[in-house]
């Protein structure tokens, strides 16, 4: 199923665990260190580097971009490490996160409560996935290098709905 981002709550409600999606549009990267900083900024009520409303966060720490390339290898990292922060971000408007592996019950509740979803893509296929990233721009925390926040424009980025808005999981 082809999906044009941003992913609205209405669209999320139509997705089911196990559906294969091809995403096109804008996604934002963030992993461990960026999540920590985002949470601190939220706590201090500072302006965030991107608008969370209906946004899609990709858990990735890419390899450095070589000269003349758009991006390096860019596959998903284990989502569970972001679970301490994910409910807060879903509550503030994030409609989808992309990663790999299990989520905690708290994330499941946040997904149901916010009519959101959790997507996965193939772990260890960073070369393949990088081919769907057409533009990459660092928008925050540049000092974090691989853990900085990037704005990616993707085309037909392949993923699977791992948990739908009703809390059904592909792993169960």
């Amino acid at each position, binding site marked *: 199923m082809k999906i044009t981002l941003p992913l609205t709550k209405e669209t999320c409600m139509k997705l089911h665990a196990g559906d294969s999606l091809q995403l096109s549009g804008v996604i934002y990267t963030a992993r461990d260190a960026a999540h920590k900083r985002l949470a601190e900024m939220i706590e201090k009520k500072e302006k965030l580097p991107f608008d969370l409303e209906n946004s899609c966060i990709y858990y990735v720490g*890419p*390899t450095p971009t070589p000269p003349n*390339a758009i991006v390096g290898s860019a596959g998903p990292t284990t989502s569970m490490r972001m679970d301490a922060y994910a409910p807060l971000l879903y509550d503030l408007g994030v409609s989808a996160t992309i990663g790999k592996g*299990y989520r905690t019950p708290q994330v499941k509740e946040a997904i149901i409560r916010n009519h959101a979803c959790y997507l996965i893509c193939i772990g260890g*296929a*960073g*070369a393949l996935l990088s081919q769907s990233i057409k533009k990459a721009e660092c928008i925050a925390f540049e000092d974090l290098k*691989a853990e900085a926040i990037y704005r990616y424009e993707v085309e037909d980025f392949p993923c699977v709905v791992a948990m739908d808005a009703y809390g059904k999981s*592909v*792993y169960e």
Partner: protein
Amino acid sequence: MKQISVLKIQDKIREMVQQINFHYPKDIEDLLEKARQNESHSLGKEILDLLKENSRIAAEKRIPICQDTGMVIVFIEIGQQVQLVDGSLNEAIQKGVALGYEEGYLRKSIVSDPLFHRINTQDNTPCIIYPSIVDGEQIKLTVGCKGFGSENMSVIRMLKPAQSVAGVKETVLQAIQNAGPNACPPMVVGVGIGGSFDYAAVLAKKATLRDCTLSNPDPEYAQLEQELLEEANRLNIGPQGLGGDTSVLKINIESAPTHIAGLPVAVNISCHITRHISEVIE
């Protein structure tokens, strides 16, 4: 005495870390291909097809197979007739890693302190070095680049001797089950049995870096490897944890003598890109 320059070792390490981040080792690639042909679950088969495509793109376009280009582990066996010249061996190995990661645009994933100061060292060092002295006048290097999605799912248990084979099997299969999708299956699993608390873990690491075309030379351990593999593949974890026949590509066991009171078992979980390479320097 045979003289070997540490600069030669530095250069080899620089090449090896790049080789394995862009090209699957032949043994793993063959196991993945066999799994792809035999996978009966359609989504599992589709994922294995995409992993093959990923491998092709990585090699052709020189993009790392995975963005987690890992922490470098070096096993170095030094023949006792070898005299190392031209400087410090430790510095040469570390410099080889730093040069390889810079030159290959590989991700630097090492922080200088695990707890209080998680500051990236920016050159992917230090790597972990396990030296050993062996007979002869050559040096054997075995290098792994270990991703931590799978490393984080590894376990160690101090079993009671009475728990025996059943206890070992339960420990290994439970670790695989718990690892599930987090470890990027199909996995390669290294099992260390015996030694002490610490040594069992080193054996498990060594086992993940062993050539997967080989079985344990002891027939009883070889049979245990085979039985565990079959049982693990009945867990229906499947490629990426979405179900299927292919959960584990290979289980390698390394064993060592242990204490009368102990049965240490370490399970080092590794992913479908178990990056390992060995070379002999003469």
